């Protein structure tokens, strides 16, 4: 006798198997070959004409004009097209903040001054509408950073694709974010537009404040070193999660980003980093050109804030921000360009474009948004160039990656072809059809 329950069971299990198979298929990374394209490898191989790139298992497995095409590979005809490594945006709050004006949508800024134990990783919203938009012009990875306080927490390096943050994370902890104490007068929001005031603190007060904070920061690092020793000598030493998080920084094992913008702030931050024997990178760097000799001598890299900005001082040259990359490059300072505003990450290629317009060479400009940031973030073995063994993060375009009118044809992240559809293309299609 047929048991209806049993039959349902069979039907169900059949469906489950089918779904599992489909899921596996969807999850499996197909083999792709882009052929006959101009490939900008950003590696010593340079730019290859009529070359192919083979992707398999999420990695680049072949680059060149005579590569083996695996059977069953999906072929992308690249004639007349350009292939670049996916761009790396080395500073942003992608996934942490949706609408800056609405506080409840902002998870980037936690309360408190010293928060080394916080992980941006934990607050990333994989379904944020910013993520698909961020990648439309070829950005494939993004550093997302916590903000606020003196030690803001740990950044995360994300691939801009994935069902969960675990799938997205290239580095779960990609570096500690420290807002290095400043000797500058803090500028309040809205100052100058009739809302709010600039700080009226005297320089003596600011200096005192700076000295106190720098001392506190040193003490935190010192405590972390003592803590590490104590834990090693005496495993029963109670866990302190804040110090625990700070240990790799204090021991110079993991990178720390020291935010500093003006020449004297940068100089102070570099001095601090050297004194504390940190592995550090300067973030901000608005006046890094004025201390380029120090940065070069100490081999300190800089993650620049957006350069498509107004000069700060009234007597600065009108193009002071645009020429910064050129000046750093000619001084031999390592740097990365960024488009830090979450909603503007897609404009990263134009940061490089502007830098080139104001004197940076095309190769250096490209590098500053690909291999440059990958090196500074310590992931040049995985990202930033088109080389065998690296993550298959590729952009296929119909022209110069840095030009505004260029269209992205295909985008690959970890060997998956990623949709270029966004909230914005959906709204566009919808209202284009409105009678």
């Amino acid at each position: 006798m047929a048991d209806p329950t049993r039959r349902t069971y069979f039907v169900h299990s059949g469906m489950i198997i089918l779904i599992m198979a489909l899921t596996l298929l969807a999850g499996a990374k197909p083999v792709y070959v882009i052929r006959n394209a101009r490939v900008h490898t950003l590696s010593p191989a340079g730019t290859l004409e009529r070359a192919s790139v083979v992707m398999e298992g999420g990695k680049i497995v072949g680059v060149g004009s005579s590569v083996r095409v695996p059977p069953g590979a999906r072929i992308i005809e690249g004639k007349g097209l350009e292939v670049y490594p996916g761009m790396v945006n080395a500073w942003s709050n992608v996934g942490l903040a949706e609408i800056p004006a609405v506080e409840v949508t902002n998870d980037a800024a936690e309360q408190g001054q010293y928060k080394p134990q916080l992980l941006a990783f934990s607050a990333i919203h994989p379904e944020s509408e910013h993520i698909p938009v961020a990648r439309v012009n070829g950005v494939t990875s993004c550093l997302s950073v916590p903000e606020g306080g003196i030690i803001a927490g740990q950044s995360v390096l994300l691939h801009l694709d994935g069902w969960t943050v675990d799938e997205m994370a290239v580095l779960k902890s990609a570096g500690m974010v420290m807002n290095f104490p400043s000797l500058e007068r803090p500028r309040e929001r809205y100052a100058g537009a009739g809302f709010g005031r600039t700080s009226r603190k005297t320089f003596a007060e600011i200096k005192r404040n700076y000295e106190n904070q720098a001392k506190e920061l040193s003490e935190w690092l010192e405590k972390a070193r003592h803590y590490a020793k104590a834990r090693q000598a005496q495993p029963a030493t109670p866990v302190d999660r804040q110090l625990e998080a700070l240990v790799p920084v204090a021991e110079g094992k993991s990178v720390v980003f020291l935010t500093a913008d003006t020449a004297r702030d940068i100089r102070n931050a570099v001095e601090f980093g050297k004194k504390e024997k940190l592995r550090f990178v300067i973030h901000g760097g608005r006046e890094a050109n004025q201390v380029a000799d120090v940065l070069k001598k100490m081999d300190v890299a800089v993650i620049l804030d957006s350069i498509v900005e107004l000069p700060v001082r009234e007597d600065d040259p009108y193009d002071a921000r645009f020429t910064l990359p050129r000046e750093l490059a000619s001084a031999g300072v390592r740097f990365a360009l960024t488009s830090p505003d979450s909603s503007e990450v897609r404009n990263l290629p134009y940061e490089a474009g502007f830098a080139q317009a104001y004197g940076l060479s095309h190769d250096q400009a490209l590098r500053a948004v690909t291999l440059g940031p990958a090196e500074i973030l310590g992931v040049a073995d995985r990202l930033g160039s088109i080389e065998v063994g690296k993550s298959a993060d590729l952009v296929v375009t119909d022209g110069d990656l840095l030009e505004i009118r260029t269209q992205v044809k295909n985008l690959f992240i970890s060997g998956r072809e990623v949709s270029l559809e966004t909230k914005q293309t959906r709204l566009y299609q919808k209202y284009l059809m409105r009678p």
Partner: protein
Amino acid sequence: MVKRRYMRIKAVAGLTVLMAVCGVRADAAEPGASAVVIKDATILTVSHGTIARGSILIRDGKISEVGQAVDVPDGALVIDAAARFVMPGIIDPHSHLAQNGGVNEGSLAVTSMTSVEDFIDPTDIDIYRELAGGVTTTATLHGSANPIGGTGAVIKLRWGQDAKGLLFAGARPGLKFALGENPKHKRTQERYPGTRMGVEDVIRQAFTEARIYMQDWDEYNKRVAAGDKTVMPPRRNLTLEPLAQVLRGERLPFVHAYRADEMLMMMRVADEFGFKVNSFEHALEAYKIANELAAHGAVASTFSDWWAYKVEAYDAIPYNAALLTRKGVMVSINSDSAEEARHLNQEAAKCMKYGGLTEEEALRLVTLNPARQLKIDDRVGSIDPGKDADLVIYNHHPLSVYAVPQKVLIDGQVYFDIQKDLVIRKRMAEERKTLEEKDRQTRDKERQPRKPGDRDTVKDKNATEVPPQGKEGE
């Protein structure tokens, strides 16, 4: 990390402000030859296509001839522009330029009695910076803190001239309105309105009063014209006057708006009161109501790709300008910020990428269309004989990310020259160094313990020692 879009950042560097201003101003436009010829350039006329290797003759500040070959009068200043691109000066239809200390009078919901013209700051360094970005004309408007702001001003970026010298003579006056989150935002004080309902109410009430005011004056003028010598004039009201001018069609309403529904609301109010909304400013959701905007005849003045910085900007799409253009709406790109204004040509290029506008359509977004929006297209906005010689010479095609303005002309005079800028900045750096050195010497001197008998102790005979000052000053 969030760009502060709603404000202008100004660093005041004390002494150096004056220095900067004087330094550049002394080298501002030289009253040049009455005839100028720009030779052998790729000319993007914006009105009638591109001339591959053409020249422009300028006489007395106006474009006189445009073509493959033009007359070169004796004594004309000839600018060799081979391998260069010339386009009309960029017109920014919405900025807050040259408004040091102004922008918002947000204490009342209706401040139509205020005027930008009253506080134009011709020393605002952003004028020079925008000029260097190819902007030649800008409409500098009040902010969006209240439903009805004040009257704006259209200026040319004639860096070095005084406030009056910047004004675009004969430009039609405007009045700023604002809808949505900004006017209902409770910033520093509680004031009505606090919702979109209230915003409409405030505007409707103001126009109701303005209509009565206008009718009172019409009646008075009619009776005076009829020879009535006993009639008393109505009391003048400076708040209602600009609104009455809007009702009469003499003043252009510029309406800050983001959401589609609030733009529809404003058009309903305008229809009821019998005026036309000249333009919706920012208009991020204009693409949702292209039909209604086209029917009303309102211009949509938007950003290329800003979005998500507030809720009402969450549905913004970079295809806005292209979609609206295709559906017959006049579109311009505005800056709203001195930073954005410096690359409006590149913002226009984004509208080719997103939505596929042609080169000429894209260039019009920042030239001819804003000129039409501001009703100054008989004077500026394209390269045509008879128009003002407001021109930008670029080293690359202006829709390229690599384009940098080399020279900017207003009324046929060179107001920005990249070569001259290099000379000026060198001189300013030297001047700065000298001033800083002088300042340091003065401070060092002050730090010296004074001995009785020092000359400057005469003023204060009791002083024997002055305690040293802080090591660094700011």
